[in-house]
């Protein structure tokens, strides 16, 4: 008797009501969450080690007489994560401004990616600081707009993150309202999120107007915010290899490359994990592939200009630096990055010429450009410190150690956990009109 009564009650929460596997934990998902928690916890352990003993436990050391690099993996990944955040909000904004409906199914994935990447970027920079609380308090209390870091903490992590969250919320409200109408274990949450939303034609008109103007406002913020991260390096006259006007635009474009690449990878995972292959189709991937190709070609052009500039008639220090990059210590990273970026570009060009797009190949380019982007970020941060001394200091060296890798992997796992968690609470692919 008990079981027969219980069955119809449990059945709806388990199988009906929620699309895309929301609210349903399969063993694979449980394994995924546990694995992510374990990796994050290990990263946190490494971080605690660092907080308790000082940054001496990392591979970082002082410039000059200590012959090390004072910024290393953390800063490289901070730059990378901020770059990845480019994707989501750009795609979402492009959908509204240029009415690219084919991209609609990946819009929320992108918005979520932006939010998560910004959080990870902020955490990566906090991991680089010995006194995170002092940093947060002092930056609020004593922040100086003259410092290029100011843009990171205001425009990027605050303004941009806030705008992205608003965007994510505004575009999700309709789905929340539609889900709030049926019984499920998250009904209360959906009702709260929907906040009295009524799906009428007037409301849709308001939605369209709001998201359009929000998109128009976010796009310039995006360019400015990503530029400020480029300024962190580009404004330093005393560091060969950093000083240059190309840093800010180059940063924006490589941000786009890594961001779109990430979005492609994530969309491919999502369509399998949520059984939405019919929603996220090759059309969306082809669109992202074309966008990626445009950004990638621009970035390769910037890189070519950069290589010519540092090799044609360099100053003495720049020459040492370019030798280290092109044929010395960092050559394998540099040429590895070029190889993966050019390879990705060729894959995309070939698909564009034959007009035959394949999801597998587009995902492969997403992976390749992200390898290239991480390598390029590393090369922006490190070589100018070890090989860019203007006084007769010895050539420095830097190798990230396990503590830094553990923290970085922990950040990735945390990001995966957040995205996975979102997928289990809210449909990550916007619901179709019919639903």
């Amino acid at each position, binding site marked *: 008797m008990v079981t027969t009564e219980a069955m119809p009650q449990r059945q709806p929460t388990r199988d009906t009501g929620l699309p895309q596997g929301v609210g349903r934990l399969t063993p694979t998902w449980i394994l995924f969450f546990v694995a992510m928690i374990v990796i994050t916890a290990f990263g946190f352990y490494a971080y605690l080690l660092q907080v308790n003993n000082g940054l001496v436990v990392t591979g970082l050391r002082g410039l*000059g007489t200590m012959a090390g690099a004072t910024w290393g993996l953390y800063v490289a990944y901070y730059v990378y994560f901020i770059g990845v955040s480019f994707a989501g909000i750009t795609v979402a904004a492009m959908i509204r401004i240029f009415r690219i409906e084919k991209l609609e199914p990946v819009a929320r994935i992108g918005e979520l990616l932006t939010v998560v990447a910004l959080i990870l970027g902020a955490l990566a920079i906090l991991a680089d600081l010995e006194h995170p609380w002092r940093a947060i308090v002092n*930056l609020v209390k004593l922040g100086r707009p003259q410092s290029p*870091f100011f843009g990171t903490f205001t425009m990027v992590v605050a303004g941009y993150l806030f705008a992205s969250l608003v965007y994510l919320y505004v575009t999700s409200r309709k789905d929340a309202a539609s889900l709030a109408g049926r019984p499920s274990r998250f009904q209360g949450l959906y009702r709260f999120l929907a906040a009295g939303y009524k799906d009428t034609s007037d409301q849709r008109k308001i939605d369209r107007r709001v998201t359009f103007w929000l998109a128009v406002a976010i796009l310039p913020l995006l360019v400015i915010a990503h530029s400020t991260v480029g300024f962190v390096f580009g404004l330093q006259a005393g560091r060969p290899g950093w000083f240059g006007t190309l840093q800010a635009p180059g940063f924006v474009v490589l941000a786009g490359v890594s961001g779109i690449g990430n979005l492609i990878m994530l969309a491919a995972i999502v369509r399998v994990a949520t059984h939405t292959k019919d929603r996220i189709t090759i059309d969306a991937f082809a669109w992202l592939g074309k966008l990626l190709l445009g950004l990638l070609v621009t970035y390769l052009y910037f890189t070519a200009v950069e290589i010519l500039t540092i090799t044609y008639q360099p100053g003495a220090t720049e020459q040492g630096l370019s030798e280290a990059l092109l044929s010395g210590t960092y050559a394998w990273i540099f040429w590895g990055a070029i190889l993966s970026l050019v390879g990705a570009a060729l894959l995309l060009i070939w698909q564009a010429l034959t007009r035959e797009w394949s999801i597998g190949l587009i995902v492969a380019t997403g992976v390749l450009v992200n390898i290239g982007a991480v390598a390029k970020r590393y090369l922006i941060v490190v070589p100018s410190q070890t090989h860019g001394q203007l006084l007769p200091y010895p050539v420095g060296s830097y190798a990230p150690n396990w503590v830094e890798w553990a923290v970085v992997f922990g950040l990735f796992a945390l990001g995966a956990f957040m995205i996975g968690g979102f997928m289990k609470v809210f449909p990550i692919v916007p619901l179709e009109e019919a639903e």
Partner: protein
Amino acid sequence: MTKYAMAVDLDRCQGCRACMEACKIENNTPQAVFWMYVYRTETGEYPDTKQSFLPRPCQHCNNPPCVKVCPVGARFRRDDGIVLTDAERCIGCRYCEVACPYGVNYYNWRTPDKAFADYGTDSQDADLVSLTGGLTPPYKNPDLDQLQGEEQRLTAGSAHMVGVMEKCTFCVQRVDKGLEPACVDVCPVRALHFGDIEDVNSPISVYVRNRSTFKLLNELGTDPSVIYVGGRPPEPETREIERPLTEVRW
């Protein structure tokens, strides 16, 4: 208006590195940290080589890149030209370190060993106690913990707090008392001079007048307060030889 400057006479410097030692004793700097550093450099190819010495304190720039980039105003330039770090404000982002072309910034990667606060001695040693009266550690400059200047900020190096930046302060704790920096005071050949460069009659102004001088990397627009007299600036092919403590990287 006082504007402090240091003159370094490269024709006089003989590379004894007493200034480095005096700096470490005055400021209790931890291991592998050299607020004052003396390069021993070599130029040319064998057999036509030339050796020279170049003391390198913080250049106390009048247009300091480190002050510009500091996100919280921990690094600041006083009206008298001394560039200082507020240990209580510094968040340890190390932006000043990468922005500085002279490599004078030292981050406290960890809490200094006690051995470097008391010079490796056992403070409870009976022989030592008879001399120090049991003070532990036997020597630690108490002035470093004091707030300095009109701003009353903790800028003299203090306890070399882990996770914050530090560098040469021109011995602000001594200068504010009317003394010269420790390195200047100790130099046996008077290669280092310190004083008010805006006072035309001050000893340092008189010293640099009519002598050939240069400032390190002045082409970067930093306008240092350290004036090198005689000698030549290091060239790109100048190499450092006989580095002290090559392997000390903590």
